[in-house]
Every structure is written in structure tokens, then in C-alpha cells.
């Protein structure tokens, strides 16, 4: 994993150059699917790009209370963390990651929601604080299920290297783990059953209430990048490895798109749950998955 490959992955394929258009494409797919399911036409194809550029063009005056240095730094960190997570995914180029890159991937996937919470508190708006408190409660509850599922998969394959995880054959525990990750994605991406943190009807836009212009554009971009990162993680764990590299990318894109369509359907079909109901849901679900995963992992380990 020398420097050039690292930069190639960071800036070119799974990184910036691929990730940003993919993020906009996924955002557009989600809005278009929800619209079509409601018999509406939905936004034109380049809409996320237009929104991004328009927000970049807004002239946000420097008010100390609103646009402090720290406050405008959070979205940049969030975008960087998401792109970092994306570049670690074992997709096309030389795929010999380093041992333990799964743990780095998990850390980078957690950072954006941490920055989201911090942004809510630094923006000093009451709705920002309430939104951040909700986001914190939600991330505690869904992370239980998410981390346990990933660790269970890693333990069952005896490796923390993404590369070997991607190659190994599917086992029952692996599919349960992937299902658990899929259940956590709506909470992580603030999709409708769990869109509690940025509940427009209750607390304006939650932590992002005070953001405007470039900050808001970067937050939308980091949201899109999270889409790509999460679907990428699920795709790399679930997909078999084929011989040709272009077949890999094709299958990866198709699988990610189907995950996006599924989640958009879920978002269109449900109402927004309250924070305590969703936390209770995840904790109940979390305990079952936890016990199941750890026990099977230990059994597998003891038998060998």
C-alpha cells in the first residue's frame, strides 16, 4: 500500500473523482424513487449538482455567532472522513490492503456522525442542540447492532483485513451480519423511519439549522458520500469476487443501486418514529443480534 496507490485510491477511483458524482447520483436516485412512488415526476437528473453549486454561490456574511471557524470546519472534516472510508473499500485497484483496515474503515464511518453532533452543539441554536442530542442517542443505539455485526463477520473469518473478508466464501453468519448492517443503514443515513435528527417538522433542520451556503453544501455532499460508503461496505462484503475487474465494478454498482432503491422504498413507506421508540427498537434488535453473532462466532472459533 505505497503512497502512489494510496493517493490513487484517495483521489481517483473509489475516492474523490468517483465518489462525489456517485454521491450526487445516489441522492438523485433516492429522491427520484420516492417521487415516482408517490406518482410525482421528481427532480431532474443533475439536481443535487445544481443544489451544490447554488449553495456554493451564496454570499454568507461573517457573523461571529453563526459562521465561526470551528463551525465551518465540521462539514469539511465530515467530507474528508467519508472519502477516507470510501478509499479503503476493497474494490478495483491493487487490493492488498493492510491488516486491520476494517477497524480504520469503521472509525472513518463513525466520524461523520460525530462531526454532525459536534456541529449541532457549536452552532449554538437550541434546535441544533436538540438535534445533536437526538443524533447522539440514535448513534448509540444503532452502533450496537452495526459494530457487533461487523465484528462477528470478522471473527468468523479470523481476519480483520478487508481483502480477505471480501474473498472468503459466504457463511450463514455472514449473511445475518449483512442483514444487520442493512437494518442499521436507515438510521445512519437519517432515512425516513429514523430521520429523527433532522426532523424538518419538529426541529427545523436539526444540527444543520444554522448552516447556509458552502457549509450546507458540504453537509449534503457528506450525506451523499455516506450513502456511497455504506452501500459500498455492504456490497464488498456480500459480493463474490470475479476474475475480471470491470465485472467487479459493474456488479458493485448494480448491487449498490438496488440497495438504494430498497432503502428509498422503505423511506417512502414509513412515517418518522420518535427518538425513544427507535432507540428501544434498536436496543431490542441489538441484543438479539449480539447474542446470536457472538455465540456463533465463539462456537466457530472453539470448533477449529
Amino acid at each position, binding site marked *: 500500500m505505497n503512497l502512489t496507490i494510496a493517493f490513487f485510491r484517495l483521489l481517483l477511483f473509489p475516492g474523490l473523482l468517483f465518489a462525489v458524482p456517485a454521491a450526487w447520483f445516489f441522492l438523485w436516485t433516492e429522491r427520484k424513487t420516492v417521487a415516482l412512488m408517490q406518482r410525482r415526476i421528481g427532480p431532474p437528473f443533475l439536481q443535487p449538482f445544481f443544489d451544490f453549486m447554488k449553495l456554493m454561490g451564496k454570499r454568507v456574511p461573517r457573523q461571529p455567532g453563526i459562521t465561526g471557524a470551528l463551525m465551518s470546519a465540521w462539514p469539511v472534516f465530515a467530507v474528508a472522513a467519508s472519502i477516507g472510508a470510501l478509499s479503503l473499500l476493497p474494490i478495483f485497484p491493487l487490493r492488498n490492503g493492510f491488516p486491520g483496515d476494517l477497524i480504520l474503515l469503521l472509525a472513518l464511518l463513525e466520524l461523520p456522525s460525530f462531526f454532525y453532533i459536534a456541529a449541532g452543539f457549536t452552532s449554538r441554536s437550541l434546535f441544533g442542540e436538540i438535534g445533536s442530542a437526538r443524533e447522539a442517542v440514535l448513534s448509540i443505539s444503532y452502533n450496537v447492532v452495526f459494530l457487533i455485526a461487523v465484528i462477528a463477520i470478522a471473527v468468523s473469518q479470523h481476519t480483520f483485513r478487508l481483502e480477505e473478508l471480501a474473498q472468503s466464501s459466504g457463511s450463514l453468519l455472514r449473511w445475518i451480519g449483512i442483514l444487520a448492517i442493512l437494518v442499521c443503514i436507515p438510521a445512519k443515513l437519517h432515512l425516513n423511519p429514523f430521520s429523527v435528527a433532522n426532523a424538518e417538522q419538529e426541529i427545523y433542520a436539526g444540527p444543520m439549522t444554522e448552516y447556509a451556503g458552502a457549509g450546507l453544501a458540504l453537509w449534503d455532499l457528506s450525506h451523499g458520500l455516506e450513502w456511497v460508503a455504506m452501500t459500498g461496505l455492504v456490497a464488498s462484503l456480500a459480493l463474490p469476487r470475479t476474475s475480471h475487474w470491470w465485472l467487479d465494478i459493474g456488479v458493485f454498482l448494480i448491487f449498490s443501486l438496488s440497495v438504494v432503491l430498497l432503502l428509498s422504498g422503505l423511506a417512502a413507506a414509513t412515517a418518522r*418514529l420518535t427518538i425513544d421508540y427507535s432507540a428501544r427498537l434498536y436496543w431490542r434488535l441489538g441484543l438479539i443480534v449480539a447474542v446470536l453473532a457472538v455465540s456463533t462466532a465463539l462456537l466457530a472459533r472453539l470448533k477449529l
Partner: protein
Amino acid sequence: MSYRVPIGPYHPALEEPYKLDLVCEGETVRDADLHIGFNFRGIEYLAERRNYAQLIALMERVCGICSNVHTLSICQAIERLAGIVPPERALYIRVVMAELERLHSHILWAGIAGKVMGFKTMFMTSFELRENIMDALEAISGNRVNYAMNRVGGVNRDIEDPAALLHMIDGIELALNRSIIPIFTKNHTALSRCVGVGVLTNEQAHSLAVVGPTARASGISQDIRRAAPYAAYDRMSFDVPVETSGDVRARLVVRALEILESCKILRQALSTMPAADWWGSKKKLKVPAGTVVSRIEGPRGEVLYSVTADGASDTPKRVRVRTPTYANMPAIRTMLRGARLADAPLIQASIDPCYSCTDR
């Protein structure tokens, strides 16, 4: 420690400005106080400076969703004072317009409740269905919202083809029974937001004197159309849905059943409508001195108009408007105590508030 969360004048969950200051500890609301008056336009002040022809167009603009309610009530008040009896067909047309307005107002409320609940699909489905009613209303009266149908002593326009109206009503009833009512009452995520939320017990409803669907959802069987029938309601047979649990789901069920009742009334009115003249009296309006009170059942509850005239000038001396939301709004405070912060917008939306009615 408790802090104050202002659901301020301009909030995405509120269609109109009014301030709801919630005193919360964590996510539960301890107390709430309301500040209204943003939509106060001094309509009662203006009403004393408008002649009887202008008064009806002014009263129509008290509220955008229930405009027909206000014109019907003021016309009935002046007719009772002046002793004018509108022709039979005009009474039937008034019943048809009142029920069409109840249809579109209740379906609008179902859409807004879906939007506040975060259930965007039901918001879109309800409003898509409501467009059929708005087209029918525009075909009859020329404007989607302010119909200008009522005139002292009769109506301004006739309903030419009841067949198209009946066809639209069948479509509405089919769509409601097939998709909107089952989803709102059986979907788990929607139920988790509605059941046991914002409860108003029967005693509280009695002491706060709430009206309309809010009262009927708390077990008070009260409906002015049956208690004091006006227009042609005494010739219509319909029943008044009543629920007893008093939470947001009960209000939703009461309004859904009322929509089906409205469809029933519309079918009866359109089929038994006499083919007489509808224009009514042609001579100049002469209003004697005196005070009159007229009440009708609007989509949100009982509307009371008290008109006082002195017989000499052609402007009323005093027009008093008591709108249903004015009676239901104090009930929001009792419903919000102990509720979750996330449910506060849904609870205040569940009484179908119309602040421009409240502030006049």
C-alpha cells in the same frame, strides 16, 4: 433542568403563524403556553363599516379552508333577521357546498397530519385525491377556495351537472376505503405516532367546551347539523361518528368516518334536489333592528355568528364571530402536558387548527 422550546411563529410544522412555548425537561413537555394574534386583521372592526353586499365577501376571507362556512352563517343570520326564506333548491345547493367543503377540509387535514407525522407518501396521496374535489368546486363556483356561492336570500350559481359530481364522490369514497383509511389506521409506524398521543379525556372535553371532531373524538356526541338543523339538513339522514379514546388516532378515525358521512349526505342531496328556481328574492334587502344568532357545523366544529342591526343604516352595528378553533385551542395546553417533544407539532395539528379563524 427545564428549558423553553419555542415552536415559533414561523415553523415548518405550522401552516400559519402562532407561538407555542413549550417548557420541557429533556424530551417531555411539562407545560405550554400559546400566543396568538399574528393573523389578527380586525375583521369585526371592518364588518361594522361594510354594507350587507360587501359584508359577505369580507366574511368569506376570514379563513381560507372554511370560507363557505362563514358566508353561509352570515347569510343565514341576515335572512333570519330580515325574515327572508331562500327557495328550496338554494337550501339544497347550500348543503352540497357545505359538504363538499367538509370533504376537502378533512382530506386536507389528513394530508397535513401525514406531513407532520413524517409520512410524506400519505401527504401526497391525500392531496392528489383532494385535487378532484377542488376541480369539482372550481367547475361549480369558478374559484378553488373562495366559492362566493351564498347570497342573502339564495345562492349565486346553480349546480348544472350533478352526474359529474356523483362520479367524483364515488371515486373519492373508493380511494378512501381502499388506501387512505386502512393505511392511516393500520400502518405500524403511523400507529406508533398516533395511539395514546395527546389524550383529551371526556371530563376535560366537557369542562373546556371543545367543539367539532375534537369533542366527538373524546366521546361527546354533538353535531349542530343534527341538534339544530339548518339549510336542508333536516331532510338528510346521516349519523354522527363518535370515538371515546380521545387521542390523535380517535380524531383521525372520526374525521375519516365523517368524510364517508359527507359522501352519503351529498348523494342524498344531489339525488333529491328539487328542480325549482334558485335565485331567490329580487327586491332590495331591508334589515330591521334587532340581534340574531346563527350557528352552523363547520369542518372544525360549531361556528356562531351574532349580528346586530339598527334597521336604519345599511351596515350592521356589530358582527361577532366565534370560530371553532377559538374553543379548541385552549385544549392544546392540557393535551401537551406530559407529551413528548417530537409529538408536540402532531398534537397541535390534531385539532385541525385554523389560526386565521381564531384571530379574525
